[in-house]
């Protein structure tokens, strides 16, 4: 099994210093090659499509804007200076001693974002954030805090990418999210890292009574390695957690991705759905549901396809601590069923088109709250990735 504690990362390879990037007031002035990369991970430079924007390059906050009353977006250092109470929210649920990754993030921090929707504020458009590595060999260790106050609603689209032609890099994202009573957070993360980039997010979300967390994760493009296993505590009655992930691993890419949801209060609901395709890469798709009280419901679905070759490992886990929990899982790993291909061929599709139709359907997980232009771009990205798979 791969080292999930960061023991496989040689931190000496990476720099923790990077030159500062200039602040960009007008997003229209972003270099076209960078803007193109932003778009690929769902970050639009058209301000009117978003309620707010946060962009960090290496360790510099290069753009930060909010377009709605009651919505705060800023770099974590600025936020710590403005809100003394915020210090208590950092490293609250994630310990720096947790593993080598968190220890490194604590030792060499490099900004991160603070996003807060104040009580009762329904943020109309998605908020976007982009974490971008421009410097070769840089270790981008961000610490993010998101707070959705009581009754507030917000969708964050966060895109992570690197400058074209970057050869090495490390991204560590320590994220602590708080969804207060009756709040709703949709968090969509789209990754387009380079082929040699190692990525190690560490995330914990606390969801209070009646709160909802919907987390979508999409990684279609080649990367070096990714290992993450975010934890969500459904701590209040009726809290809901839903995780969807779409993973594609090409040759040389290693993805170890999962989610752990702890159902700690009555009437909580959790769902983890993962769709993974490997065509030469390694994928471990994990899911861990823990039912601690009676009256909870949880379901886990891990489906993996191996096209040509590659490794696919599904590890679904269910743990019930008391009677009266209702938990189920469904896991399947294999190749495309020949019967499905031939069924479509009998309707007139040639074999290649039949296979790509099935693959597109397989990856077509309903992702809640995705703005239509982003959905269209995602479909396009899937279609382009498919060309490489065939």
């Amino acid at each position, binding site marked *: 099994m791969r080292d999930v504690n960061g023991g496989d990362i040689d931190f000496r390879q990476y720099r923790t210093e990077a030159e500062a990037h200039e602040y960009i007031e007008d997003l229209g002035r972003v270099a076209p090659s960078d803007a193109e990369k932003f778009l690929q991970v769902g970050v639009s430079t058209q301000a009117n499509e978003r309620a707010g924007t946060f962009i960090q390059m290496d360790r510099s906050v290069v753009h930060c804007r909010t377009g709605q009353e009651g919505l705060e977006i800023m770099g974590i250092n600025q936020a710590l200076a403005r809100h003394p109470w915020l210090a208590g929210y950092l490293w609250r649920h994630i310990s720096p001693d947790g593993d080598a990754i968190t220890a490194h993030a604590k030792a060499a921090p490099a900004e991160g974002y603070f996003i807060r929707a104040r009580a009762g504020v329904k943020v109309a458009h998605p908020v976007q954030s982009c974490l971008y590595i421009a410097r070769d060999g840089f270790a981008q260790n961000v610490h993010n805090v998101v707070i959705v106050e009581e009754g507030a609603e917000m969708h964050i689209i966060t895109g992570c990418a690197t400058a074209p032609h970057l050869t090495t890099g490390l991204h560590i994202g320590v994220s602590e999210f708080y969804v207060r009573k009756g709040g709703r957070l949709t968090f969509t993360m789209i990754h387009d890292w380079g082929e040699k980039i190692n990525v190690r997010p560490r995330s914990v979300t606390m969801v209070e009574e009646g709160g909802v967390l919907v987390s979508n994760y999409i990684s279609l493009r080649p990367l070096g390695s990714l290992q993450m296993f975010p934890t969500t505590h459904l701590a209040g009655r009726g809290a809901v957690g839903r995780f969807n992930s779409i993973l594609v691993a090409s040759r040389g890419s290693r993805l170890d991705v999962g989610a752990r949801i702890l159902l700690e209060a009555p009437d909580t609901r959790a769902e983890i759905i993962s769709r993974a395709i490997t065509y030469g890469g390694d994928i471990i798709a994990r899911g861990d549901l823990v039912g601690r009280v009676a009256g909870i419901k949880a379901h886990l679905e891990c489906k993996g396809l191996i096209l040509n070759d590659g490794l696919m490992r599904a590890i679904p886990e269910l743990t019930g601590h008391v009677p009266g929990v209702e938990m189920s899982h469904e896991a399947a790993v294999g190749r495309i069923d020949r019967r499905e291909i031939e*069924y479509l061929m009998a309707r*007139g599709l040639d074999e290649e088109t039949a296979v790509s139709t099935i693959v597109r359907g397989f990856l*077509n997980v309903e992702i809640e709250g995705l703005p239509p232009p982003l959905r269209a771009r995602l479909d396009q990205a899937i279609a382009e990735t498919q060309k490489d798979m065939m």
Partner: protein
Amino acid sequence: MLTIEELTVEIGGKPILKNINMEIPPGETHILFGPNGSGKSTLMMTLMGFSGYDVTHGRILFKGEDITGLPIHERARMGMGVAFQRPPTINGLKTGQLVKVCAGQRPVAVEELARQINCTQFLERDVNHHLSGGEIKRSELLQLLAQDPDLVLLDEPESGVDLENIVLLGDTINRLLHRGVKFPAGKTHREMLQARPKSALVITHTGHILDYITADRGQVLYNGHLCCSRNAREILKWIGEYGYEECFRCAM
């Protein structure tokens, strides 16, 4: 339309169909009777070109062309269409999308077609996902209506369908074969018959479908041999009276 000559088929090295000869002229509907395991579905899958059905002898001619070695999609594009008994589920692909696929380049009013055969409720559902027996039949026929094939292969169209729905099913099949009286679209009977002739091979175990569709001929497949070819209703009467044992005695 379809000519089968001395067709011998094996599955995994085991002979299933033995020296089958059959002719379905343009515009004719033939019924293929046979007990379970006689090779009916194997014949259908072989005609469509599915993998695992190895033709070791003989050939299949469609519209005068030898299609024995053609891939499935080319047969479909030439005008062969099949309604499956147990089609696979395709996750993430909506039934409505597949209906458009079936129509190929032709425009198709998916909603309208679906409304006519009571299918609108699952257009937005994944193909064959959690459909009842009757819904699967309707979904298959909806796809065939969009595909508009010249030779229709139907595998046990009446199985798993309740009495209420079987009438609609029969009407839909008749419409597909240009033999219906419910969808004449202002045309006379003669004009309808003069339109592009449609042929069909309908597999049935029980023969119940004959109460709802008209057939020109019946054939009996028994233990991989085509052992009888005559009026379909007459065959059904004999099977009704004596079971398939009579076919066995005949074939001896």
